[in-house]
């Protein structure tokens, strides 16, 4: 199958014939018509990322998963640009799980999608991949036609010299025999010559998102859609309290449900397996499990917050000190303090977690999933099943959202699924499905936290700034963090505050709980940006300063932050009069190597409720690969961030989650979505992330607009409906 094709260890990468049955997991390409006309297509690899089909398609292998952020278009664009391809011939497919070929330098060489790294970590590599394949095609044409390579032109998917002409597909086999050029010898286009990079989509769809057609016409394949003949479906009963362990279970009633085939215990609970989902779910509904809660969480949210407040009374681990640090918080002038409280948040991607395991004991395992860390899953599965990692094949499908949930260092989903497959000796393919309730109630949350903000104002300025946080670490205990190293990613955005303040103190307490936590779209910035930007407006108000003017003053030496601030202020008409009841709020933040300013327009109504009407966003993400996808990510990031600050909270009662589904864990709906305008700073800097940086500024921008309307500090999230 295409996804398991292996590459020769030499510098030549030649693939054999790939039949159409094998293309079954390819996404983004509808090859059925071609099949009818011309039979099987030969795919020829020109390096690890580029495959040219005998039908003249060019398929780019994605080492990052497409879960909506647009990498299938963005990464393909970079290759197409340097390859001088025709956009119509471009396709994409997820790469196999292979760290050597597809590792992410930003993940220490392990495959991984996250941290808004896809474009910036791939930029040099994929330019090289495209340029290298172009040179191989050029050399192949020169050899075939007996002309100098310098007389061969590659343009718009055609290779030409005098009267000789060929498509990429016609030259592919010969090109594969050419040694790939030395990376240092490759030449790249000037930005002014770009045909695809920076180009807007067009309405006639000659250029646009590559995943749109299949997603609009229900041809896209997600992991949950994979449903082989004879597959069994499993649902797992997990501990109601975080950290509970199975003592025993009574499955007579579950086994009596028509369709239930097996009930098995695994490390994380008891799985009910059936011939279809509905039977499995009904079986689980009547399953009785006894739990040992001796090491489980038993506190409720209020008690956890009280523990956090107690910790905050003392200094934590120092993460940043400027000037005299915390000592400067005491002295003449006005001292200001505020505690900002942030709840646990659930990722809740629309496609609930799932994967399908096809296990042959002692031989092999094929896992169909939509994972952000496929090689980590591969190793975890091999460990569970007693196989070597190369006996485990990961087939990566499109994922229906993720927001970080599918990047788990402990491979939670695949560990559960392979334990289930092992427990039934691989007698049939088994699909582990999480219901929405499982998703909401099973942890891996954005950690809750309190930021204790403090400042001393003196002589019309902020003389000292303090930001002390109590929070659980995400990275502690994972292979991402060497033991004993403090996890300052928990307060990214706090410890690198860019405002020119003479005395700064940032410190952190790492709190413990069996409630599991994970990176949630923009990770630490989800709370640090709010604490920093809203507190700054609280102080600016006390100082009688305009929020934009004061930021300009404090960011005079930060040109890129200043650039987005000024662009947003101009486009939003900052300072121009608004109708009664309407106010504006601004926030600016640096995350994932990008810079974003957002200005929110908010209406506070007579009944005390409020609406976010309009958001103006300015982003500097370096070279813009695809402006419409940058726009889409800012729009979506604003919606995702707004959803959290308006109404999302996962609370705990006696160690168990209170919420269970979308009626009590309530995501943003259309009626709450503001109009969004996105502006990009023209830049020739290398491209940087856009998946996450749109999220952090929206919360404080809205809170600052409310502060302007009511004079109140908005210290407890979510904000709820009332101003």
């Amino acid at each position: 199958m295409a996804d398991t094709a292996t590459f020769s260890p030499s510098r030549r990468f030649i693939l054999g014939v790939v039949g159409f049955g094998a293309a079954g997991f390819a996404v983004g390409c509808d090859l059925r018509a071609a099949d009818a006309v011309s039979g099987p297509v030969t795919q020829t690899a020109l390096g690890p990322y580029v495959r040219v089909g005998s039908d003249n398609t060019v398929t780019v292998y994605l080492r990052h998963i497409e879960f909506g952020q647009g990498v299938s278009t963005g990464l393909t664009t970079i290759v197409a640009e340097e390859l001088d391809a025709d956009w119509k011939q471009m396709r994409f497919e997820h790469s196999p799980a292979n760290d050597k070929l597809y590792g992410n330098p930003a993940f220490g060489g392990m495959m991984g999608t996250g941290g808004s790294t896809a474009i910036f970590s791939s930029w040099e590599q994929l330019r090289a991949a495209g340029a290298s394949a172009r040179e191989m095609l050029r050399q192949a044409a020169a050899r075939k036609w007996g002309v100098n390579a310098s007389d061969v032109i590659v343009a718009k998917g055609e290779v030409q010299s005098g009267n000789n002409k060929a498509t990429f597909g016609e030259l592919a086999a010969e090109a594969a025999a050419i040694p790939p050029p030395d990376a240092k010898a490759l030449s790249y286009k000037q930005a002014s010559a770009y045909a695809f990079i920076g180009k807007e989509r067009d309405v006639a769809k000659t250029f646009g998102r590559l995943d749109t057609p299949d997603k609009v016409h229900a041809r896209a394949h997600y992991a949950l859609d994979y449903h082989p003949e004879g597959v069994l479906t499993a649902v797992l009963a997990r501990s109601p309290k975080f950290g509970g362990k199975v003592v025993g279970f009574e499955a007579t009633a579950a086994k009596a449900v028509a369709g239930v085939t097996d009930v098995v215990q695994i490390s994380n609970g008891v799985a009910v397996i059936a011939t279809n989902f509905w039977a499995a779910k009904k079986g689980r509904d009547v399953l009785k499990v006894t739990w040992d809660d001796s090491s489980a969480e038993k506190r409720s949210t209020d008690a956890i917050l009280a523990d956090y407040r107690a910790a905050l009374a003392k200094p934590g681990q120092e993460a940043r000190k400027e000037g005299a640090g915390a000592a400067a918080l005491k002295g003449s002038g006005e001292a200001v303090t505020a505690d900002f409280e942030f709840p646990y948040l659930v990722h809740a991607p629309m496609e609930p977690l799932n994967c399908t395991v096809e296990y042959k004991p002692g031989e092999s395992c094929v896992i169909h999933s939509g994972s952000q860390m496929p090689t980590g899953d591969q190793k975890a599965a091999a460990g569970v099943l007693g196989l070597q990692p190369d006996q485990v094949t990961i087939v990566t499908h499109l994922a229906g959202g993720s927001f970080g949930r599918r990047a788990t260092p402990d491979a939670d989903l695949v560990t559960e699924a392979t334990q289930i497959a092992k427990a039934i000796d691989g007698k049939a393919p088994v699909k582990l499905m999480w219901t929405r309730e499982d998703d909401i109630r099973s942890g891996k949350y954005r950690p809750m936290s309190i930021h204790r903000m403090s400042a001393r104002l003196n002589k019309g300025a902020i003389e000292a700034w303090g930001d002390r946080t109590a929070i659980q670490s995400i990275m502690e205990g994972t292979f991402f963090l060497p033991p004993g190293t403090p996890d300052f990613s928990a307060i990214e955005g706090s410890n690198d505050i860019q405002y020119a303040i003479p005395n700064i103190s940032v410190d952190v307490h790492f709190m413990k709980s069996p409630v599991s936590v994970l990176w949630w779209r923009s990770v630490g910035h989800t709370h640090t940006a709010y604490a920093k930007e809203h507190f700054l407006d609280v102080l600016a108000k006390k100082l009688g300063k305009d929020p934009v003017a004061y930021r300009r003053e404090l960011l005079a030496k930060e040109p890129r932050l200043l650039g987005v601030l000024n662009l947003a202020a101009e486009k939003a008409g900052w300072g121009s009069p608004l109708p009664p009841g309407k106010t504006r709020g601004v926030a600016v933040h640096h995350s994932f190597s990008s810079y974003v300013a957002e200005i929110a327009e908010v209406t506070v109504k007579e009944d005390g409720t409020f609406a976010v009407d309009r958001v103006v966003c300015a982003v500097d993400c370096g070279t813009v690969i695809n402006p419409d996808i940058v726009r889409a990510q800012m729009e979506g990031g604003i919606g995702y961030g707004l959803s959290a600050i308006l109404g999302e909270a996962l609370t705990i009662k006696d160690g168990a989650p209170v919420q269970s589904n979308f009626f009590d864990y309530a995501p943003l709906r259309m009626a709450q979505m503001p109009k969004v305008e996105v502006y990009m700073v023209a830049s020739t800097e290398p491209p940087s992330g856009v998946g996450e940086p749109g999220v952090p500024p929206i919360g404080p921008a809205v809170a600052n607009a409310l502060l302007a309307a009511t004079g109140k500090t908005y210290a407890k999230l979510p904000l709820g409906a009332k101003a």
Partner: protein
Amino acid sequence: MKLTINGEEQEYTGEEDRPLLWYLREDLKLTGTKFGCGVAACGACTVLVEGVPTRACVTPAASLEGKKITTIEGLDTPAGQAVQKAWAELDVVQCGWCQSGQMLAATALLTATPKPTEQQITDGMTSNICRCATYHRIRGAVARAAEIIG
């Protein structure tokens, strides 16, 4: 019992309480209809029953005897085609998981209200959740589909 799905008659012999969603996805392999919440709270599983948007995750297949059911795979009315064209034109999709439900909701809205106001678009679409928050473009695409229908 007989169900009519995308114009084809199907013989349903499954359990009385089994939701239509699972019959579509697991038995008929019509996987364009998506599972999102299982409690009619998100709209990812929206299908049209006699043209009315219906949550397949809580509607027993056995309750639909003799009814005409349309899924995303069979969306061939002028409104439905205009909706899909507009969705493609505006590149509405991100992850895409909720979009079948969104497009069926939009089709029902435009079939009942061919020239919706902005408020009618919001009212017609607000019960469908999109976690990627493509709402901004969905608004635009519904308006564009109305234009295409003419």
